[in-house]
């Protein structure tokens, strides 16, 4: 009993802290708060849209209550395996229920550990929720289980993922943005500065190497998914900058992996990874933090999830962050909304009351004063154009700012959907081939040939353009 009381008090204290961290107060929600004044830019992948006024909750509440002709109940499921997700979702839902008299959102406990299976089970027993956190979006879109989101919701986000031009999910957070996390103390000591161009970045690496104090870069090449961070950077620079639908064109047969842009991808990676530490091929991702905090390497290229790991490993470590510019001078980052996010069921959307209520709930969820609770709790990069004010570390704020000002935000190539979805495990084959190239056991031409062979085999059983393997 005592334990319950203590844990209850701690939960209340935690949420109070989180809420106080969010910049907007109750008055904000009435419309007096800073509106969408963040200079967020729309990315290339999403047509520009005016950021809606940030705080229209009250007006929306009135409008939604007007639309709902009778008291409406919505079931809502999310992956509640994470305490942070659970707390923030409960807070927002409680606030919504308090705000909207005629609408009641009921949270049904999800199963965070096996969420996909949980949703499938709910569907199969006829308990598919009205609103849900959707992860296997492509599967449920193909099954006709999700309702399209209206434009006024889609326009709330920096980027969304569309299926045949239709968006079904409101991304809960921006994709994990990769960038260089560096030893700021060392940089200051040696007079190294954050590079503004790609050439400056290579010069910086060379400078650190010449100084001889530590490796310029630490790379966790033993975990091939870690190689994906670097691969996608170069792929984004060389391939997607030329052709955003390269994968689709490969399915169509109009492009192949012997394309010059793919060869340039390998070349760019050869140029960069010559600065990796000795033994990078057998270094696991779990060890790269150790390299950074122990002055064995000056920089790592990874996502924002590393911030907390670095802080835990050495609370006194002073880190900096910068995005690695592309050779053409643009800044292309992993970020924006992916295919997963909040979705409305197609069945619920057939009921006008439920549809209106569900849309009102999603708008309410992403209003900056509410969405900040979620982002703050989960250290998530906001996916909305109107950025919530977050009480985050300066380095994390730099990432948020970078995603707002980047020339291009996109999800990792292996999370793309529709005609650009990769055949199963092609990603891993590519990364392994990349390691061969970087180790010098295979030349670039031969690597490209191998990719083509594997692609052709994979395409026989999976081709979203022709529909093979999609059913």
């Amino acid at each position, binding site marked *: 009993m005592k334990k319950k009381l203590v844990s209850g008090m701690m939960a209340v204290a935690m949420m109070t802290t989180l809420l106080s961290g969010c910049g907007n107060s109750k008055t904000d929600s009435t419309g007096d708060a800073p509106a969408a004044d963040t200079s967020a830019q729309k990315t290339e992948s999403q047509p520009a849209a005016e950021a809606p006024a940030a705080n229209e909750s009250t007006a929306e509440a009135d409008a939604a209550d007007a639309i709902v002709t009778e008291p409406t109940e919505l079931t809502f499921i999310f992956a509640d395996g994470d305490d942070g997700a659970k707390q923030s979702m409960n807070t927002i839902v409680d606030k919504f229920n308090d705000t909207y008299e005629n609408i009641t959102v009921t949270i049904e406990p999800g199963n965070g550990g096996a969420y996909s299976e949980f949703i499938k089970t709910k569907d199969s027993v006829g308990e598919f929720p009205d609103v849900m956190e959707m992860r296997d979006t492509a599967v449920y879109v193909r099954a006709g289980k999700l309702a399209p989101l209206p434009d006024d919701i889609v326009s709330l986000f920096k980027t969304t993922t569309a299926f045949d031009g239709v968006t079904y999910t409101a991304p809960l957070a921006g994709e994990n943005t990769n960038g260089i996390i560096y030893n700021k103390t060392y940089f200051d000591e040696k007079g190294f500065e954050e590079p503004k161009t790609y050439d400056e970045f290579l010069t910086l690496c060379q400078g650190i190497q010449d100084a001889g104090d530590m490796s310029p870069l630490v790379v966790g*090449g*033993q975990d*091939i998914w870690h190689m994906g961070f670097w691969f996608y950077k170069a792929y984004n620079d060389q391939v997607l900058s030329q052709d955003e639908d390269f994968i689709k064109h490969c399915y169509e047969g109009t492009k192949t992996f012997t394309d010059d842009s793919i060869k340039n991808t390998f070349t760019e990676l050869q140029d960069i990874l010559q600065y990796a*530490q*000795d*033994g*990078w*091929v*057998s*270094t696991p991702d779990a*060890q790269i933090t*150790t*390299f950074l905090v122990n002055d*064995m390497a000056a920089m790592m290229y990874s996502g924002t999830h590393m911030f907390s790991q670095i802080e835990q490993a050495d609370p006194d470590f002073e880190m900096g962050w910068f995005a690695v510019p592309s050779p053409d001078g643009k800044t292309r980052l992993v970020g924006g909304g992916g295919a997963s996010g909040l979705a409305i069921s197609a069945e619920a959307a057939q009921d006008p009351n439920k549809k209106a209520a569900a849309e009102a709930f999603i708008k309410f969820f992403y209003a900056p004063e509410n969405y900040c609770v979620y982002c703050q709790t989960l250290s998530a990069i906001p996916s909305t154009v109107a950025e919530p004010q977050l009480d985050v570390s300066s380095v994390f704020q730099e990432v948020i700012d970078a995603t707002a000002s980047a020339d291009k935000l996109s999800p990792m190539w292996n999370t793309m959907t529709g005609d650009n979805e990769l*055949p*199963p*495990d*092609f990603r*891993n*084959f590519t990364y*392994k*081939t990349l*390691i*061969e190239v970087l*180790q010098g*056991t*295979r030349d670039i031409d031969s690597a490209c040939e*191998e990719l083509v*062979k594997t692609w052709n*085999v*994979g395409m*026989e*059983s*999976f081709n979203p353009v022709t529909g093979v*393997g999609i*059913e």
Partner: protein
Amino acid sequence: MKQKKGLDKVTIAFIAPAFIFFTLFIIVPTISSVYYSFTSWDGISPNVKFIGLANYKEIFTSARFGNALKNTVILTVFISICENVMALVLALIVDNVRWGKNAFRSAFYLPVLVSGIVSGFIWKIMYNYNFGTFNTILKNIGLEDARQDWLGNTSLTLIMIGLVLIWKGAGYYMIIYLASLQSVSTDLLEAAQIDGATAIQRFRHITIPMISGAFTINFTLSLINGLKVFDQINVMTDGGPGFTSETLVYLLYKVGFNEGRQGFGTAVGIMLLFIIIILNTLQQKFLRSREVQM
């Protein structure tokens, strides 16, 4: 008394459970896998498309299969020979020590009890370039330049995996050699000693022929174990760097279960089955001819 022909009900009742289990889980999957090797089945979809010999054609033209086959042969030959030499040496040590026989036997056998996954993790940590045991020792004794990326250097990876397999497997074969050594007649050895044979001559002309049965068993087992190595590769290298340490079994797993190409994976499995049969038959023929009947 007339002997009853056929099987009675009691016999059938005893045989049935094992027969049904064996048929359902061994015979049927084995036979059906032959069929699946002629399809492009992805392992999940209910649609199974017959593609004739395409998978086998790909096997014979695929550089990845060739690389996996080469790795499998190198690893199998390497560990079959080294494991047996090591096991025999250990058995001779245990057989000849005067004190602590049991302690030695237990110590040498201990690695056999460690699971393949766990041993892979332990050795992976020891092989680590920056923080591993070997490189740390080399650094501490002033041989920093001799440090190696044991699992990252493509010319060392297979050897390093092989050493782990030998470390783990030698104790098992040692027990078989030990049992065989202890059955060698002391009369023969004493007679040879009286006739002036040296220790090496006695070992070569009496002990080795007398334990040739153990050689046959151990080489057969180590050959089969070498051909189906999986755990250590999975944990230590994931078949890498690149595809450097990918063996046939690992290729089968990767393409069949990770790349959604169950048909091709099954074809690799069928090829592996043939390779095991051929190698084992040759080995049995060679080793059996050298066995001495008591």
